[in-house]
């Protein structure tokens, strides 16, 4: 079985010999950031961090580790939500020095990039040539594209452009034994048997190391408009979404929602957050619309759609950003919500999805369910409602001790996830499994699916060196 004990000197020498200078970190202070989780809940452990600079170096590391049966945890920006990048012994393979843009081909609307490129840098590089890489999330200043692909990240443009998976044309992967698979094709069409790249996307580092990716680009954003609408209920938010989708179609770039409490806590805990309205409203919808062209008609059609919604009583009020600064300020409200409620107290988080049409039903039933179990619990349900993806977060009751609240986590998780499951939903919409949701995976995915997954794992990583302790419970892999 995989060795998670401190590595032997012989092993260390072999790794050092395989890499260029500065690639290895072995002192505890240097290792600390790689075993620390930003959530501050779990801790990892390892005695070596490697920072390869090329695919060939990654290949050498994996072949040595596979030979010695030493566990390898790939790590990108370490911004994940489920402790998937936290090593449980063995070594960390950080992608931070695999950060070149190998090719940016505007005519083919594609870029080939190494796994350790920071998402924001790639967005900027595409923007420089008038193109758009339509993947955007709160962690974009630190997360790596390799991490985004390994977790199949979603974010705020998913409603229009899909998840990270939908942006991939090809991958380069180093397999567990060190063999390099060059699947970096930039083809739009390629029906030649199993589409293997999709196995690695969302695999959370358990099958191999993604070293580079060919990504799709789109024409740049010519115009964007931002509207924040105030509404009565999540049901109305859904109605607004359905209606705008008919009226504006593909012009909708983002569609998010948050409740009154979300805004209140953001104003309480985060500097420079203003209430755009004078009054207090129960629910808000943040809508971003765009056109690839500089398009004065966009603003008109958006205004008209919202004006009709206002006349019909579907929305209670709305503000329209008149400048990029105002647009940024509206988005900052949405983006500061997780941080704001973390500052308010202990939280129990859920990242769930249900069919878009069932979101209101889920929210009503979910709220009743948790309030019955824990009177006084404060529900902050927010997020990517246009994708049916709700961050259904529970904030501790005001008069309850933190640890007594957190002790209820398993029970509350279970109740919420059972509800989601009964609605045909998913207990992890975009954050993945990592160490945090392994029991849920075993519980909610059918036996036949788990069997296929185990089969794939055994085939691609027979010695189980890739990120052990993630996705599967150790006993499930045997």
């Amino acid at each position, binding site marked *: 079985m995989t060795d998670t004990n401190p590595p032997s000197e012989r092993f260390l020498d072999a790794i050092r010999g395989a890499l260029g200078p500065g690639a290895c970190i072995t002192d505890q202070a240097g290792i600390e950031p790689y075993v620390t989780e930003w959530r501050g809940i779990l801790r990892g452990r390892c005695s070596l961090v490697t920072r390869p600079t090329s695919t060939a170096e990654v290949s050498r590391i994996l072949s040595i580790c596979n030979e010695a049966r030493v566990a390898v945890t790939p790590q990108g920006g370490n911004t994940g939500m489920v402790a998937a990048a936290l090593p449980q012994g063995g070594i960390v393979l950080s992608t931070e020095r695999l950060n070149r843009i190998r090719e940016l081909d505007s005519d083919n609307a594609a870029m080939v990039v190494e796994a350790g490129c920071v998402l924001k840098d790639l967005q900027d590089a595409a923007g420089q040539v008038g193109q758009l890489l339509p993947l955007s999330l709160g962690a974009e200043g630190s997360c790596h594209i390799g991490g985004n692909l390994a977790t199949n990240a979603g974010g705020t443009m998913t409603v229009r452009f899909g998840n990270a998976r939908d942006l991939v044309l090809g991958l380069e992967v180093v397999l567990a034994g060190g063999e390099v698979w060059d699947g970096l094709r930039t083809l739009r069409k390629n029906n030649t048997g199993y589409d293997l790249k999709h196995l690695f996307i969302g695999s959370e580092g358990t099958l191999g190391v993604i070293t580079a990716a060919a990504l799709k680009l789109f024409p740049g954003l010519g*115009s964007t408009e931002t509207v924040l609408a105030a509404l009565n209920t999540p049901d109305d938010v859904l109605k607004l979404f359905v209606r705008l989708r008919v009226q504006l179609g593909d012009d909708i770039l983002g569609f998010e929602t948050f409740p009154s409490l979300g805004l209140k806590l953001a104003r309480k805990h985060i500097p420079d957050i203003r209430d755009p309205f004078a009054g207090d409203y129960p629910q808000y919808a943040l809508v971003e619309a765009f056109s690839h062209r500089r398009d004065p008609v966009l603003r008109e059609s958006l*205004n008209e759609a919202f004006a009709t919604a*206002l006349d019909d009583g579907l929305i209670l009020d709305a503000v329209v950003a008149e400048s990029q600064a105002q647009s940024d300020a509206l988005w900052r409200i949405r983006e500061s919500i997780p941080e704001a409620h973390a500052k308010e107290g202990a939280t129990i988080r859920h990242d769930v999805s249900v069919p878009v049409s069932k979101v209101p039903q889920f929210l009503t039933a979910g709220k009743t369910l948790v309030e019955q179990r824990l009177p006084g619990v404060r529900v902050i349900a927010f997020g990517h409602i246009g994708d049916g993806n709700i961050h259904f977060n529970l904030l501790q009751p005001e008069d309850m001790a933190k640890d007594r609240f957190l002790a209820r986590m398993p029970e509350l998780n279970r109740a919420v996830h059972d509800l989601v499951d009964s609605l045909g939903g998913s207990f992890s919409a975009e954050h993945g499994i990592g160490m945090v949701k392994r029991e849920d995976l075993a519980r909610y995915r059918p036996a036949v699916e788990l069997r296929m997954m185990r089969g794939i794992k055994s085939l691609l990583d027979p010695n189980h060196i890739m990120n052990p302790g993630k996705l599967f419970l150790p006993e499930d892999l045997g």
Partner: protein
Amino acid sequence: MKILVPVKRVIDYNVKVRVRQDGSGVETVNVKMSMNPFDEIAVEEAIRLQEAGRAEEIVAISIGAPQCQETIRTALAMGADRGILVETEQDLEPLGVSKVLRECVDRESPDLVIMGKQAIDDDCNQTAQILAGLLDWPQGAFASTLKFSDGRVDVTREIDGGLETLSLLLPAVISADLRLNEPRYVKLPNIMKAKKKPLDTIPIEELGIDVAPRVSTIKVEEPPARSGGIMVASVEELVDKLKNDAKVI
């Protein structure tokens, strides 16, 4: 009281400005445009005065291409009552703008002109002062607080080293600084209402004034790219670099 508020359409504050290939100016094609942020503050102040019952009418005025109507509509949606577009495709300098504004003041007879202290595109910070000079009105530039009493306005302004309060006789010209207020978001119902508010267009030629530029731009170029910094290992090395490489000590 009647208030005139000039509003300028500029490249959005958050847009990274690019120089045109041919060096003739900055790229404005396909670039997001917004109201000059200081003008937004001026509009907001005028509206607050109206809401406090001190102003009867607010007239927003812009000078430029037909697209400047959008900027005026924003002012109307914020709460101004009517708009005037003085239409021209020519880029005016502060002197030209001030002359046009003087003409408008003559026609409209406002008691107060509130405008932004400067436009963020050329950063001239001249128009309010020139206008006050042309009109021979008192001026309060860089206002951070306004207090009105019988025919006067006390303007607290930000100056080097502190605050100064001037007491001006109306009519007067005031230019708004950042801290005067925080402009409101525009509400959708008000955008719809703004479409019905009057907006007159006057071709600039009709005013019969000389707005010919006094300055000609020879070339616009990007500032040289900054070269990256270096890390020094010791104080000795730092001193050495400052002395021998940077030659600043």
